[in-house]
């Protein structure tokens, strides 16, 4: 065992409990990918499932795959404050953006009323990137950037392509990439940590 003791690194290792397994990536990817697919097959009513199903995947994955391998922790007060702060800030930003959109909708051809999905992409990218900040996991910054770039590309292409909906392609492909990355991360995790069968 290495004798180097770095408290910052130890703190980072603790936060890795929440992201090292790739389950958070899979949940985010499922939400975005599923959102695109349900809209593509014209079943918007099923979008509601996306608030539940990815969470179940995350929870069941943690219980059946992660905890038997790396155990579990209870976050301390500082971590709890960070998580709660993240969700409250996100809700406030989402609410603010929704109000902004409603206010702009009736005020003629403004950027926000013409490109509501860009706004959606921005909020989504912000949510994913800030989750990376909370979990001290840099790949989430890439996911945020990917989602925003994909939606911006969809916006640009929507003026050029009419045969398919570039927005849906952007949503599905960015969700698919995050799903794939999550799957690869999970496989690496399962290979790295065997199931611990006995307890002391």
């Amino acid at each position, binding site marked *: 065992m290495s004798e180097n*003791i770095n408290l910052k690194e*130890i703190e980072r290792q*603790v936060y890795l409990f929440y992201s090292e397994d790739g389950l958070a990536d899979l949940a985010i990817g499922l939400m975005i990918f599923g959102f695109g697919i349900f809209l593509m097959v014209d079943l918007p009513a099923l979008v509601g499932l996306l608030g539940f199903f990815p969470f179940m995947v995350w929870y069941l994955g943690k219980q059946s795959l992660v905890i*038997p391998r*790396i*155990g579990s*922790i*209870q976050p301390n007060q500082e971590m709890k404050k960070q998580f709660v702060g993240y969700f409250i800030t996100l809700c406030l930003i989402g609410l603010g953006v929704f109000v902004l959109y409603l206010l702009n909708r009736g005020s003629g051809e403004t950027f926000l009323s013409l490109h509501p999905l860009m706004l959606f992409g921005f909020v989504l990218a912000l949510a994913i990137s800030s989750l990376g900040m909370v979990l001290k996991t840099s790949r989430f910054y890439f996911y945020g950037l990917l989602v925003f770039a994909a939606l911006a590309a969809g916006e640009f292409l929507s003026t050029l392509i009419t045969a398919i909906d570039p927005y849906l392609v952007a949503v599905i492909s960015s969700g698919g990439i995050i799903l794939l990355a999550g799957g690869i991360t999970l496989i690496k995790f399962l290979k790295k940590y065997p199931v611990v069968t006995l*307890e*002391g």
Partner: protein
Amino acid sequence: MADQKQSNNNINLEIDRLVHEPVRLKILAYLSAVESSDFVFLVSRLGLTMGNLSAHISKLQEAGYIKVDKSFKENRPHTTISLTDMGSAAFSKYRAGMLQLLQ
């Protein structure tokens, strides 16, 4: 010079040998970053055998630095470990002492 030597000796005396051991120091460092953790988490993070970790856990528990709760979860033994106030104070004091020593 003599004062400096005397001062260094005083600092040395205040280093808690129980905390100073690298594995136990790491255990305390991990526990200081969480509310509590289970045994498996420490095994996976520290890369120790269960027997080795148990020995260190016992020493820290005997000193009153950590609290160990044993229970059953889905018919399996489950051990939860957390830092006590005394352990938290000992870890903080050790850190402060080491910083002072190295300055």
